């Protein structure tokens, strides 16, 4: 936060306000001139037209799956621990597959509490949770705002319900085992 302020102050000190004014107006004028001759609108006809956010956008969460289609999440609870809004609720249990050992039986995110900070994604050691660029999350009742793991992993918008496959961890593990 502090850095650009200092830069601005320096600019002001060295060149007076005129240079800043010039720079600002230059951008404005250039945009104006461009818009005079190019006919692209700044607005969209939502919802018919949709804005496509970059992949870095922090929208609705997705739980990734392994190649066999099971959840990648090992329910280590690090996301739940890290979550500043405390909106992630995981119930873990033994997995029948001994190499997996621990898997969630329920994974819920309270969407109304979530602040989309992306900490869960950062905390996850196995690339099991990601924030997508999906931003449409409207609902009618309180119930709809608690996303369970079917919703998070296998909703229609994700590969037609097949989920997002992540293999990052597998490769790492393979490297270790060789």
């Amino acid at each position, binding site marked *: 936060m502090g850095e650009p302020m200092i830069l601005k102050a320096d600019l002001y000190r060295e060149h007076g306000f005129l240079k800043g004014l010039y720079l600002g107006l230059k951008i404005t004028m250039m945009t104006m001139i461009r818009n005079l001759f190019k006919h692209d609108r700044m607005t969209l006809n939502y919802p018919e037209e949709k804005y496509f956010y970059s992949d870095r956008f922090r929208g609705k969460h997705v739980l990734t799956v392994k190649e066999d289609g099971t959840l990648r999440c*090992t*329910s*280590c*609870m*690090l996301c739940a*621990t890290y979550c500043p809004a405390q909106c992630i609720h995981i119930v*873990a*249990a*033994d997995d029948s597959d*001994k*190499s*997996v*050992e*621990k898997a969630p039986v329920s994974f819920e995110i309270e969407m109304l509490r979530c602040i989309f900070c992306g900490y869960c994604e950062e905390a996850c*050691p*196995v690339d099991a949770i990601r924030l997508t660029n999906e931003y449409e999350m409207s609902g009618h009742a309180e119930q709809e705002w608690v996303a369970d793991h079917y919703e998070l992993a296998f909703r229609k918008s994700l590969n037609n319900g097949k989920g997002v496959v992540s293999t990052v961890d597998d490769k790492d593990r393979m*490297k*270790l*085992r*060789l």
Partner: protein
Amino acid sequence: MTEKVKLTWNGKEIEAPKGSNLLKAALDNGIEVAHYCYHSGLSVAGVCRMCMVEQDGVPRPFPSCNATCGEGMVIRSDTPKIKASVEATLQFHLLNHPLDCPVCDQAGECGLQDYYMKHGQYDSQMIDKKVHKEKVQDIGKNVMLDAERCILCSRCVRFTEEITKTNEMGILNRGDHAEIQCNETLKNDYAQNLVDICPVGALTSKDFRFKQRVWFLEDVHTTCIGCETGCSVKVSENKNGAFRVKPVYDHEVNGHWMCDDGRYIYKHVSSPTRLGGAVENINGLFVPADELNVQAAVKGKKTKYILSTALTIEEYANFFNAVKGKNVEVALYTLPSDGPEFDGILRRGDKNPNLRGAKAAFELAGFDHSQAGLDNLLGSISSSDAVFVVVPEILYNEDHFNTLIKKVEKAGVRIALACGETLGTLRAFNYLLPIPAFLEKNGEILNYQGQARKLRKGMTYGEASKDVSYYGKWVNL
């Protein structure tokens, strides 16, 4: 009193009994020394090589767990040489460790994690194939073994060899293929201690498995009410409930250990079927009721109380204060003994945690606490009576309790004061009223030695404000 000697550890003067263990002396004096295999309740193995120290005048570093305190020793564990050796040894510990912290229950209280943050923080150079051993082995008695996570400190082997003398655990093979194995299954009644002494996640509790991460839990230091020993324990709990019981070192009563039965005393406290408020029994169905209805039912009846032995001294005192001077009969129901009187380690057959406190309180108030007193009370029950029975908090012997209930059946109004689940046995009662569980009250109990043991209040999961003395005021309404 043994002779004390003074020694210097990292420039700090400490005092310890002469000839006592050097590492223990440091730990007792609040000096943090990394160690895995040393446990003050077990013999010295000296295999983890983490507690190396240097002494002035001794050419080579040596492990402090195998040294004894002598007058004027100058010990250093913060020299560059020692720091480097601890870091290197830690690296060796972690070499073949699978690093499955995400799925490991020990994470958060794991010796490897703790020491890595304190003494390690190196960049791993291990890019080679790790040695793999068998994971997820259920070795009985609610203990899970993961041989791969094991750092072979041999604490568990020494525990089964020295404490329980049952010799179930052993280290098979040699070199880096050495692995902990259990001979068939665990057979001792102290098996859960293996989980406690394991410094890493090799031995974990099946009961606690994947229930919670330990950093979500808070410990309440209280006393076990499983039997008359009164072991010092801590119960780990959070708002979702209580999750496990672990022993706390107390040299007068339990030392480092506790028995397996005591591990499950938390279960009823946060059980979803726990009694939340007054309920009425309508044709075998428990229906929530208003307390005033119960009071109305008791009104005009002669009240009789049968107390259990799991209440605190304070509760007994308050109760007898409440009923003082009133025409009331009070008797004490004691649980029958279960198993041998004493198994040689900790467990006692007498399952009445505060029998001594109860007897003292009865005597002080002038009531009869004997079996004869109970028989008298039971014999005199008629339909004009209202009988309050305090259900023993840990009901070891339901059949024995059922015989008591049979005798109470003649009473006009039968009321159970319970802090646990609504058991089938309680169908014989007309009303159930809640009382606080041991984890929801402060107080003291007297153990078999006559020593006052403290119960401490943790979180509240049920009705905790109305204890026995509250219902004691309902005498002769």
